[in-house]
């Protein structure tokens, strides 16, 4: 089951990456939440990518990290940078999402009270991710895990082919 945004062609392209790296994310704890986002932000800044793209990439990475911390046993964030775009994938091993359409609704959340007390779980995370990416795909399998793929354009003319 997949939900797509803004995709008319096979987007999530296959041109050779100029940079690729994978960062592990620990599930079940917020102790290091934001650590991967900080690293990715610093990396992209170092690549002289525009502030706006860095800001959006940091945000979608942060929200993905929080989701892994909140709902998964473990996971990873995969960063790929080409001259045209930044691609961020969040892949986790966890409970998966029962109803993706519902999960994508602003305000809907399955967060526990503990998560909410910390100011997470307001049902905004996936919406933020979608709103701040140019292309977004989510797939999930119950009991197995969830896979998010976000693409942010560097080159404004990049049309996803």
């Amino acid at each position, binding site marked *: 089951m997949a939900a797509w945004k803004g995709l008319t062609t096979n987007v999530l392209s296959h041109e050779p990456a100029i940079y690729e790296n994978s960062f592990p994310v620990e599930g079940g704890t*917020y102790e290091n939440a934001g650590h991967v986002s900080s690293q990715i932000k610093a990396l992209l800044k170092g690549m002289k990518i525009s502030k706006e793209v860095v800001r959006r990439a940091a*945000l979608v990475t942060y*929200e993905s990290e929080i989701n892994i911390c909140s709902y998964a046993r473990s996971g990873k964030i995969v960063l790929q940078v080409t001259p045209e775009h930044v691609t961020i994938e969040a892949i986790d091993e966890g409970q998966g999402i029962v109803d993706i359409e519902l999960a994508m609704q602003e305000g809907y959340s399955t967060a526990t009270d503990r998560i909410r007390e910390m100011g997470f779980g*307001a049902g905004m995370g996936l919406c933020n991710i979608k709103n701040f990416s140019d292309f977004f795909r989510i797939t999930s399998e119950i009991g197995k895990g969830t896979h998010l793929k976000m693409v942010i354009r560097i080159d404004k003319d990049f049309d996803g082919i």
Partner: protein
Amino acid sequence: MHLEDIVKALNLRVVSGEEGLAAEVLGGYVGDLLSDVMANSKEGDLWITRQTHQNIVAVASLKDHAGIILIQGCNPAADTMDKARKEGVPIMVTDMPGFEAIGKVYNMIATKKGPDPST
């Protein structure tokens, strides 16, 4: 408007990131929902919240906030302070309730271009 001017005027207690007090405050944002703050706050904002756990440091740092004000005398957790010191994020504490703190900060930022000519 520099952060240290606001700290002095409102008598805020600085608990971390003293080295960042010279930073310029460009605006403000208020919120306890981290996703809301992530999505809507801006670089140079002074973030006012009552969340005290360590994840506020990551949010402020990722969004390049000027600093964080904790209201109602809420002290940051020990690991929040550690993280904030490491990342150089200024955290200030005030005993004022949110409404009052926000109003005062807003007035300071809104009038930074000089006194209202009508008064």
